[in-house]
């Protein structure tokens, strides 16, 4: 076997390997350039971008939990303009493939974000964050909850973005649903090119001494190895039900974790808060995948996708 093909096509986005990073855990790429050449990743997914800069929630925003963490950042980000002016040039210079994760109030803002990103060459794919537990979208027309918890809303938001851009559109879903297939299918039917899952699980922690929540936002999103089994299961469910690809994430820390997601049906994976512990986690997984394929005599990583033997 001379070489292993690691290239994957995620709903029209060509990635030279199936590894990206999870939005909000890798900044805008440059922050981790000290540790490795970030252009070697299949793609860099940037922190959720909103039209205007967002200040996020008051601190404390972080709590450590067993094998994971809760965050209640609240989507603090530089906003679209600053992204295009100050963050994008570095990523383009490095020749990174860019997945721009976006967050808006209502479908129109999502659409504007997508269109302006496309126009400015600010993204190679759009990931719609419909599932952040730390913010509230007043235009989610279904009496509270996350957009991703309401299939009809998922469809509405997805359609708006699909009409606004020709870039591949990924819809990022929440695990806090009775059946992940419902919103996933709604996204597919509305034209999404892929679904991304999972976002964090809603959680809460209380300090028994002060008797107050440990996050100023009271609740936050749970991530990390703790949630990996939940994520693998949801990827498996979604991948079997859909024709469009799944971008899998949730607790991936090493190659073996990433392989589980591919076997469960993910076309590509994103490494999230594991980077906080090991900034080179994602690139090590790229290397590990190649080694895994050689060991198992696999010449194309795509053959692993959904190949779990049940």
């Amino acid at each position: 076997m001379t070489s292993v093909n690691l290239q994957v096509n995620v709903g029209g986005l060509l990635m030279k390997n199936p590894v990206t990073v999870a939005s909000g855990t890798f900044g805008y790429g440059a922050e981790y350039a000290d540790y490795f050449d970030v252009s070697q990743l299949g793609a860099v997914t940037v922190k959720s971008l909103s039209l205007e800069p967002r200040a996020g929630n008051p601190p404390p925003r972080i709590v450590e939990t067993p094998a994971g963490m809760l965050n209640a950042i609240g989507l603090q980000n530089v906003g679209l303009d600053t992204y295009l002016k100050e963050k994008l040039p570095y990523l383009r210079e490095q020749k990174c493939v860019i997945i721009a994760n976006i967050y808006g109030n209502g479908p129109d803002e999502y659409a504007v974000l997508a269109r302006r990103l496309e126009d400015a060459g600010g993204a190679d794919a759009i990931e719609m964050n419909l599932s952040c537990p730390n913010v509230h979208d007043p235009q989610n027309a279904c009496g509270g909850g996350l957009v991703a918890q309401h299939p009809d809303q998922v469809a509405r938001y997805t359609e708006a973005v699909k009409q606004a851009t020709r870039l591949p559109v990924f819809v990022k879903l929440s695990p806090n649903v009775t059946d992940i297939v419902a919103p996933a299918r709604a996204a597919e039917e509305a034209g999404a090119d892929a679904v991304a899952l999972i976002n964090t699980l809603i959680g809460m922690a209380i300090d028994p001494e002060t008797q107050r929540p440990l996050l100023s936002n009271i609740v936050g999103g749970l991530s990390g190895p703790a949630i990996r089994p939940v994520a693998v299961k949801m990827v498996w469910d979604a991948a079997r039900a859909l024709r469009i690809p799944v971008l899998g994430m949730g607790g991936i820390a090493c190659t073996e974790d990433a392989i589980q997601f591919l076997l469960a049906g993910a076309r590509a994976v994103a490494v999230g808060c594991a980077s906080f512990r090991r900034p080179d986690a994602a690139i090590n997984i790229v290397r590990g995948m190649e080694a895994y394929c050689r060991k198992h005599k696999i010449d194309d990583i795509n053959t692993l996708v959904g190949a779990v033997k049940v």
Partner: protein
Amino acid sequence: MAHVRDCEIITHREIAPDHRRMVLHAPEIAVEARAGQFCMLEVREGFCPFLRRPMSIERIFDDSVSILYKIVGQGTRLLAGLQTGSVLNVQGPLGNGFPIPAEEVRAILVGGGIGVAPLPGLAETLVARTGLAPEVVLAARTEAHLLCEQELSQMGCPVTLATDDGSAGFHGFADKCLRRLEPDADTVVYSCGPTVMMRAVHTVCVEAGARCYASLEAEMACGDGVCMGCVVETNTEHEFGKMARVCREGPVFDTRDIRWSAYDVR
């Protein structure tokens, strides 16, 4: 430039009850580090605890750095269990160091409790760069918790002690002690310690017209500016607006830039 390296623990000693000093063989980190920067330590392999622990760099040597820490919870307890000769994964140096005046200037360092940790390195740098040993106020709850007195004295620093219970030196808080040293508009004050102390030191400095820097703490996940977890409210705009990252825009801030009142609600 920050590195992630397995570092050998060269020495590891108790310096006061529940307080330890650890010297780490870390040539790449030492060569880049400046006083006031910090490292993120992976206290043990596996996912429990999940996050690294931030620790200030105490002193910078040729190919090593030291840290000074207090055992307060699971992470620091595990750290305390590591033996000399064993290996610890260290990420650093991170954050911005203390601003160092270009010329000779009166500097006063105020350290409270374990907050003294970054001050020996700062004193050393001030001596090297300005030729003048800074004055130091060392404050702690009791005499037993006063740290680094000898070290700082040996660098030529006039050290004033203060204890909450009067068991050594001045009986009272650090800010009172600082006021007695009469800082003025030509003085630069550096402080590190409990938030209430740094805030009180800030107030003294504002009244005296002195410049004042503080090294802040915050819950950190990444230490690298990507998670947005460690913010503090500031009065001026930084890269991410008025919610500045302690790990990136800090940990050292001009105290006039801190919205101290934001701490009231916590």
